[in-house]
């Protein structure tokens, strides 16, 4: 019996693997695949519930959910486009939209929206502008579902103990951070993001302080090195080591949230609405709350445009009608409200009436305030991601370490973006 062990193992493994390779069949239903490109325990159940609701409303369509980890989602989609095997529908953010449209991977949806009374005219205008701005032809390639907003998460209990209120202006912000820094008690007023993902947060503080409202001037020159921005960056970088832990130089999201939620050594953490669930789970509503990006001392409220989330239909999909139905279902009032509420983001559909949590209501207030100036980030530039990730992040670390001046950094950064913008205009007929 023992001598037959290896052979039995081979036969068993082959049988099981063969079984796993076969299609179960879907009972004559139209089968489509949806890729969730930011899968995880917080979002997967939300999408699966939305899919179950869709299948209930459309009994002839079966949707296969595939969760893709966020860090590898772009690589997986690019591989599928190059090698075949794209999904029918996927959630696509404007930060990756230009790349997909350049590969002609997505179907335009303008006409579908125009023909659909449940969606036509129902999306937030500012978000529509962001979606159209990132592609050269100005078309819509996703049904917008949500957007994010910058948020400063703070320790409510520490603020209360110190008799402090959430700051409304940047001067108040820096004063508050100073008051909450107590190195002897291993408490820091702020945690600065010095590692991966640092640039977007740095830009939010810089433009927020300076009150500069455009990323490029009329001549196409980047406004990054405006003297007001240089001063703002000097103040921001000055927080490093004075009001933050020294280890912040390598801070990515994971390290930042670990310090704030788990180590309990940080009073204020700059991020966005998306980290709400993490904070609530670790600290609870009694200890944590958020405030929006403070106003500049001149009174201007400048916020950066955030990537707009949405759902796109892939051109190579075989069941496009069913795919469009699914995408439109996700963007509809009821589902958009449900998904946005559960995942902690601002819904794109203006008909959504769901009662949102306080931090989202506050972010909506800022976004919809006519006085708020939205600085449109250059997500349309294919080089933007490479410039910020590969070049700017290490240079920003040098600024924090005092090895590079804020002015030199912003001068070089602005020159690179100005050049990229000129190239973009040239490639797209000066549009």
């Amino acid at each position: 019996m023992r001598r037959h062990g290896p052979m039995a193992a081979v036969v068993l493994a082959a049988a099981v693997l063969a079984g796993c390779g076969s299609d179960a069949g879907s009972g004559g239903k139209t089968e489509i695949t949806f890729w969730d490109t930011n899968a995880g325990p917080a979002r997967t159940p939300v999408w699966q519930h939305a899919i179950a609701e869709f299948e209930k409303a459309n009994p002839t369509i079966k949707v296969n959910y595939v969760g893709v980890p966020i860090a590898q989602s772009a690589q997986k989609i690019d591989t599928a486009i190059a090698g075949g095997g794209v999904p029918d529908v996927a959630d696509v953010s404007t930060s990756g939209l230009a790349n997909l449209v350049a590969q002609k991977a997505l179907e335009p949806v303008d006409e579908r929206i125009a023909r659909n009374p449940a969606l036509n005219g129902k999306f937030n205008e500012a978000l529509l502008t962001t979606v159209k701005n990132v592609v050269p032809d100005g078309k819509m390639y996703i049904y917008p579902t949500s957007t994010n907003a910058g948020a400063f998460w703070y320790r409510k209990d520490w603020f209360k103990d110190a008799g402090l209120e959430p700051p409304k202006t940047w001067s108040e912000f820096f004063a508050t951070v100073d008051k909450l820094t107590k190195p002897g008690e291993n408490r820091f007023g702020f945690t600065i993001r010095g590692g991966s993902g640092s640039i977007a947060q740095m830009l939010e503080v810089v433009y927020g302080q300076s009150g500069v409202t455009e990323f490029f001037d009329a001549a196409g020159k980047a406004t990054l090195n405006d003297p007001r921005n240089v001063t703002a960056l000097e103040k921001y970088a000055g927080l490093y080591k004075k009001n933050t832990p020294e280890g912040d130089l390598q801070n990515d999201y994971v390290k930042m949230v670990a310090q704030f939620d788990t180590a309990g050594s940080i009073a204020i953490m700059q991020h966005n609405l998306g980290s709400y669930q993490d904070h609530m789970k670790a600290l609870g509503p009694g200890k944590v709350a958020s405030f929006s990006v403070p106003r500049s001392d001149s009174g201007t409220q400048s916020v950066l445009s955030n990537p707009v989330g949405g759902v796109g239909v892939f051109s190579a999909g075989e069941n496009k009608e069913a795919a469009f139905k699914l995408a439109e279902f996700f963007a509809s009032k009821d589902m958009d409200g449900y998904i946005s509420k559960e995942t902690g983001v601002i819904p794109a559909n203006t008909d959504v009436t769901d009662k949102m949590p306080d931090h989202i209501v506050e972010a909506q207030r800022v976004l919809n305030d006519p006085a708020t100036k939205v600085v449109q980030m250059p997500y349309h530039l294919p080089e933007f991601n490479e410039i910020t990730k590969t070049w700017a992040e290490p240079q920003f670390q040098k600024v924090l370490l005092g090895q590079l001046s804020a002015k030199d950094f912003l001068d070089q950064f602005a020159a690179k973006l100005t050049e990229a913008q000129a190239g973009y205009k040239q490639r797209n007929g000066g549009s």
Partner: protein
Amino acid sequence: MSGRRSRVSRWQIYVPLALYLLFTLVPFYWMLVFAFRPAGSTAVFPWPVTFEHFATVWNGMGFAVFFRNSLMVGVASLITTTVVALAGGYALARYAFRGKGAFMVGMLCTQFIPGALMIIPLFEIFRTLGLTNSLWSLVVAETVFQLPLSLILISGFIRNIPYELEQAAWVDGCSRLRGFLAIVLPLLRPALVAVGSFAFIHSWNNFLFALMFINDQEKFTVPVGLAYNLGENSVDFGALAAGGVVAALPVVVVFAFIQRYLVQGMSAGAVKG
């Protein structure tokens, strides 16, 4: 005098070893603390113990399915890699053929090519063969990537077994295959354990192939499941650590059982190239 010398040498051995162990075990300790202590706790010890994170990953995140898939791919890769390496290694050790040296160099060169570079070509090949979205694609890819090193290891080990033993078996009436099975194979146990365990562990840990070649939630493997815990805006450290324990357990168990064979197999295979 000699006693003092031996005490000094013991310190010289144990202090660096202890430091090395500290660096190695602290991340494991961190993982165990986060896996077993309640969410939100900042305790240095995993007390009170909770299994909520294990329930989350095993039932809520589908690790039961991922674990089964990883196990099947690991076992199948182990078997295919070992069988093919055994046959190829024997041929390399016992037969002289034209281009053998170039073949060996070619196999070594394949080790310089990163797997990520081969993703799209492999994807197209598997699509043509109808293997995308099948666990077989992972087994085939793993076997192909493991084979060069396995072949070199096994052929080196076989060269160390005196050819005269096989010849004696032939004189006694054995065929070449019977002689191989009766004489050579039992002596290859350490090499088979080394090659098999490497194949299993490599395949168990492989993330990229599983993510790229599979498009079905029910067919993903443990490393993909682990990556789900690192969201864009959310990191569940408890679930991440519990998933890490689940992922590490089979590897630790495999090493515990095979370590004495492993060292023997690695060193014996490395005597002659």
